[in-house]
């Protein structure tokens, strides 16, 4: 199956770009006319993935984050990638309420939110090289 549209966005890991990333992805996906609820779920998941890259991937230093969206007739595939420090133990990182940086007052719910709000989540990570978060969401489930 061929995507009907594709986009790629690249930006530096500044926290102010979290809202930029949400807006870019939501307006791209909006052309498929999904429900407001589906769009809200996607915005939230993208926000979590980008925040993860900023805080954990780059530890709030400057780096590049890439988002790629493949839009199909009935679903969207979103990849958020960083070239940061990577995740040693992905299963542990996904545990609800676990946070590797408790000093930041984070809830430890990032991956749980991505898993709950999207239909699928795959995390690939190589320590020292970076992390790639791949998520999919059905757009027409009525």
């Amino acid at each position, binding site marked *: 199956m061929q995507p009907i549209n594709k986009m790629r966005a690249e930006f530096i890991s500044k*926290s*102010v770009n*979290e*809202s930029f990333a*949400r807006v870019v992805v939501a307006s791209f996906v909006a052309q498929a006319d999904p429900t407001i*609820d589906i769009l*809200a779920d996607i*915005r*939230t998941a993208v*926000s*979590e993935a980008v*925040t993860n890259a*900023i*805080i954990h991937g780059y530890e709030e230093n400057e780096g590049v984050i890439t988002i790629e969206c493949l839009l199909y007739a009935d679903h969207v595939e979103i990849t958020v990638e960083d070239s940061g420090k990577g995740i040693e133990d992905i299963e542990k990182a996904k545990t*609800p*309420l676990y946070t590797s940086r408790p000093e*930041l*007052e*984070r*809830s430890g*719910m*990032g991956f*749980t*939110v991505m898993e*709950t709000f999207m239909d699928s989540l795959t995390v690939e990570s190589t320590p020292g090289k970076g992390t790639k978060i791949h998520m999919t969401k059905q757009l027409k489930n009525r």
Partner: protein
Amino acid sequence: MDVRFKRDGTTLIVSIDGEIDHHTSRILKDRIDSKFIMEPVKNMIIDLARVTFMDSAGIGLIMGRMKRVSSVGGKMSIRHPKPEIIKILKMSNVDKLISKEA
């Protein structure tokens, strides 16, 4: 993002306007905490009526403020969250703080 404060007896009412993410939550945290220390209050109500977006950073923000309020023996509650925000509050059991009164 904007935040407004009102005092009702010993309760600080915090009304947040806009989006709560990792970026804005750091600013909100500082502004709320300094107001909470300055005012003669011990309870806190966070009004989410005008919050248009919230991710897990908002959960961290609420849980952190709850700890602070509990440490002085106060009560914490949340009011007027929109349905999409209730969804994320429920995931971490923070929804039990939602006040029943209008």
